[in-house]
């Protein structure tokens, strides 16, 4: 592809891979591979937990990915030279370059998956993988003029590739109502527990909270002229022995 100001143009493809300048084209799979499996060596070199669900990023300078890419490239260069006679198709089914013991089992979670995401409008795979004959016929019709397709057919094609439209994926769930309801329920329950505790668990409060005692405290505070300028005693009218109006 045309990249303006690309001084690395003259580097060989292997060197470009080595320098992690490009995502590895082999990771996209070859014509011969089915859509859901890529070359085994590529998948085994990219642990699923390193990769975001979308495809490789050109600018992943993460050290572990570069190291992985480096070893993968070395292995790839060996593999391509060794198996060029067998053909491209064989790379995905022949000996894994890592162990050399046989084909590693490809775990389902390592394969590209379908996601409906706002930030990734075109997921790695189509939603419907196995097509019925009618759907295949529709796909053939898609190769012709799109104006010849009816609206229903266009919607059908859309739903072959995608599970939910943007409107559907963005809709709210109403889960918040359950959450708020749950919060209120548990707060209420806690309130009942607290009331029960006050009645049945806690003993009597100290005598210092009796009304008579509190009155004596209040009288003492006024006698001491506590906060006489702006606070407590300032509000007491000493002449008339009452609170100031």
């Amino acid at each position: 592809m045309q990249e303006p100001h690309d001084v690395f143009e003259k580097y060989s493809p292997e060197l470009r891979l080595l320098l992690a300048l490009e995502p590895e084209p082999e990771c996209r799979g070859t014509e011969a591979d089915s859509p859901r499996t890529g070359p085994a060596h590529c998948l085994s070199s990219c642990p699923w937990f390193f990769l975001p669900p979308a495809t490789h990023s050109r600018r992943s300078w993460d050290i572990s990915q570069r190291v992985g890419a480096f070893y993968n490239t070395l292995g790839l260069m060996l593999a391509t030279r060794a198996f060029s006679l067998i053909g491209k198709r064989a790379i995905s089914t022949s000996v894994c370059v890592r162990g050399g013991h046989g084909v590693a089992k490809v775990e389902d979670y390592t394969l590209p998956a379908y996601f409906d995401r706002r930030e990734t409008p075109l997921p790695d795979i189509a939603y419907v993988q196995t097509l019925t004959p009618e759907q295949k016929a529709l796909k053939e019709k898609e190769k012709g003029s799109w104006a010849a397709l009816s609206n229903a057919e266009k919607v059908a094609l859309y739903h072959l590739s995608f599970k939910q439209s943007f409107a559907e994926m963005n809709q709210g769930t109403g889960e918040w109502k359950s959450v708020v309801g749950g919060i209120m329920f548990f707060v209420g329950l806690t309130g009942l527990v607290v009331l029960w505790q006050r009645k049945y668990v806690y003993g009597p409060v100290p005598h210092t909270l009796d009304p008579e005692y509190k009155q004596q405290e209040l009288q003492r505070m006024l006698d001491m002229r506590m906060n006489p300028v702006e606070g407590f005693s300032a509000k007491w009218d000493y002449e008339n022995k009452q609170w100031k109006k």
Partner: protein
Amino acid sequence: MFEAVLSKTFSPVASRCYSHGKVETDEEFDARWVTYFSKPDIDGWELRKGMNTLIGYDLVPEPKVLDSALRACRRLNDLASAIRILEAVKDKAGPHKDIYPYLIQELQPTLAELGISTPEELGIDKL
């Protein structure tokens, strides 16, 4: 359109957000993406990668970039992706409700030529 200052994918001058570094202009950015999608033998992966990357940026793509992408969908015989692209840019505009109608207005000749229906025409913009 709202475009942030971005670094190029690879260039000899690191154009990050340094004040002294080389900054890519909007026209260069648009031209680069138009070129990307205009590749005659573009494959599905490149289309998806390009679109997902473009949507990742803090901007709504210019009509000419989208035109190039829609034509790439046509070369790949992928109507579903074309409609999805339109949905994605509408979603990308967010609260700025006037951007999407402008884009559709600018893309109308291309949509008519290629026979792409908008999500509104197909009714998939509603639930």
